[in-house]
């Protein structure tokens, strides 16, 4: 593994799993590129499950989560990421009042892994280590 690691937010996986134009670009740039470490916070799996269930697609949950698990390194919320999440939420909310704890956790986990967060979430605007592509 030589390239800088990236952490896929739920947003990124949603695009990849559905093979949208954005998802295809992300897959080509990160998943299909050798040497790129791709990590996923376990929280993203929960969100994918919740999203699919809400859309009446519970039968697709296992397939989606298995695909993410096979394609990336699923990492738990570490102690240091948990510690960082609280202050990070306060910081994010100074910029965007809609920032949620899940946003802070995603960014904290990514930073804990030394990874750039791949997300299209507007609440990360201005964060240097977040990119949408």
């Amino acid at each position, binding site marked *: 593994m030589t390239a800088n690691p990236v952490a896929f937010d*739920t*947003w990124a*996986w*949603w*695009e*990849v*799993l*559905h*093979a*949208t134009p*954005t*998802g*295809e670009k992300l*897959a080509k740039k990160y*998943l*299909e*590129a*050798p040497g790129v470490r*791709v990590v996923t916070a376990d929280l993203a799996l929960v*969100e994918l499950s*919740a*999203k*699919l269930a*809400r859309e009446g*697609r519970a039968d*697709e949950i296992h*397939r*989606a989560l298995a*695909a*993410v698990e*096979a*394609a*990336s390194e699923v990492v738990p919320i570490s102690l240091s990421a948990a510690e960082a999440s609280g202050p990070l*939420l306060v910081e994010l909310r100074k910029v965007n009042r*809609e920032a*949620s*704890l*899940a*946003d802070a956790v995603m960014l904290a986990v990514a930073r804990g892994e030394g990874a750039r967060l791949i997300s*299209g*979430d507007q*609440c990360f605007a201005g964060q240097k280590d977040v990119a949408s592509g």
Partner: protein
Amino acid sequence: MAQPAEVTVVPKRIGGSIVLFLPAEVVRKRRIREGVPVRVTIGPEARAKALGALKRRRRHRQFDRHEEGFWDDS
């Protein structure tokens, strides 16, 4: 379940050697033998399978954590 087998792989470009533990059925299927260099690819092929794992709806909407409202109380 098959027992894992010990296999020595010599990466051509790196020039060193590493030890991989592979399932016996993989060793048999790929005809891997100790001391014989083999090409090992990790990642890209399997990772690419995630692309399109779910069927896209006609009206695709990007995942928006805030719109979903899963974390309203936070």
